[in-house]
């Protein structure tokens, strides 16, 4: 699956790093590193992470090739 995080928007709340720790990691206190093309098995976790992001910085491509979940 494909995701992208708008790192201008990201403020390092790290909700995603708790919900999908193999996909999102904090580097230091605030810098987010993530896997832009994680395994499809991670979809539910990634969607939860996207929904939980306080600044809605995570964009996810759905199976239909459109934005999915909490994306806008």
């Amino acid at each position, binding site marked *: 699956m*494909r*995701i*992208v995080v*708008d*790192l*201008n*928007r*990201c*403020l*390092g709340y790290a909700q995603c790093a708790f919900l999908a720790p193999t996909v999102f990691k904090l*580097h*230091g*206190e*605030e*810098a*987010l*590193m*993530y*896997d*832009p*093309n994680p395994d499809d098995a991670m979809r539910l976790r990634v969607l939860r992470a996207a929904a939980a992001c306080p*600044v809605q910085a995570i*964009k*996810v*491509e759905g199976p*239909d*090739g*459109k*934005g999915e979940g909490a*994306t806008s």
Partner: protein
Amino acid sequence: MNASTKAKIADLVESFKTTGRIVIVGASLAGLRAAEALRKEGFRGHLTVIGDEPHEPYDRPPLSKQVLKGWVAADHTKLPRLETVDAEWRLGVAAVGLDRPNRLVRLASGEQVPFDRLLIATGTRARQWPNPKEAALDGVFTIRTSDDAARIQRALAARPERVLVIGAGFIGSEAASVCRELGLAVTVAERGPAPLVGALGGVIGAIAADMQRDHGVDLRTGVGVTSLDGDAKGRVRRAHFSDGNMVEADVVLVSLGSIRNTEWLEGSGLAAGFWGVGCDAGCRAFDINGVVTDSIFVVGDIARFPHVLYEYQFLTLEHWDNAVLGAEVAAHNMVSLEADRWPHLPLPAFWSGQFGVNIKSVGVCPFGKEIVFTQGSIKKRRFAAAYGHRGRIVAAVTFNHGKWLQYYAAQIERSAPFPPPPPGYDRPRKTKPIAAAFPDSRVPTSLPDVVLTGHDPTERGAEFRSSIG
């Protein structure tokens, strides 16, 4: 306008949306997001996206970080599709010419692609090491494409004795950070007085220099690399510096900034050159006489447009959100009539992750003459600082203090007084503005004291778009 004229114009717009031909040259972030936005805007005609790389649109910021580190594979940064894009993708073939009278894009394959409206999004490429023989040595790399990142990642995974990074801008500094995380010895050679000095000035540069040295980087500033030596097998072995020193290195990362891909527009009559392609704030390209075109639009790293916040100076912004926000505006304006057009007035913003610190910025820092630390602690590398020009705040930077950036963004949008009142309790001891210490003065010397047309700082006359919240 009478009703029948209105109806005719509406018919023309509808007919263009149904049967028109739009060509986007450039298949990276800006090209993809523009293609999506065109379909979202209701464009149902023929859409062609041309890209010189064979890959689907991918995201570049992860390349110098998680990809070099080896956590994410170089071909795993493909950008998500956020809208269904029905388009003809011509990937792996470069555009080599633009024939404006006949509205054709010429491809390297010899084919010609006709268009009614064209979007130029060809972006930048990495500046190569100037000596071609030395650049061709095994172990010498530039960092721009996913193929570059794949090669460098393999070279780093082979545990070189020492990596030399030439140029301490953001990309070079991020690469040096990854090398240290991997436990590799790394030398950084920077011609200027400090890392990041062009983007953030000498005051912040000095902090970045300390940060690099604290993490074990052998940082050499004020020196240029004069030549690279190879061995009999054509592998790079050492580099000579302008101060007479040399360093043994088996991997050399050349990060000397970027060059704008405008060569293919030579002879087209567009205002294209070293600084990019001139355009208005609605993304419409200028011709060489400064006359705005109706059918050619520009977006992303290559677009050079006037910005009301910065005294209408033409800016090119090699920033991620400039590509995303500009793509939406360009796409909208390509299928809209004059009265419905949007301006592309981003509040510039960028980020960089290095040495465990998240560096973020809003505004245009080099526009500032002075800097003031407003929050936090330099020692802890957790702080905010604002840049000022003629008593107004024009930019801000944070180190691990990004949650406060929106406060400064709001001040910048209003051209609020500098130094700004600190928003938080964590005020540093020194709160006096000092010279920001940018290396060159690119600000014109004779600014009129009375601005007859333009942005009145006391009045919010323009709507800025911010992607940071």
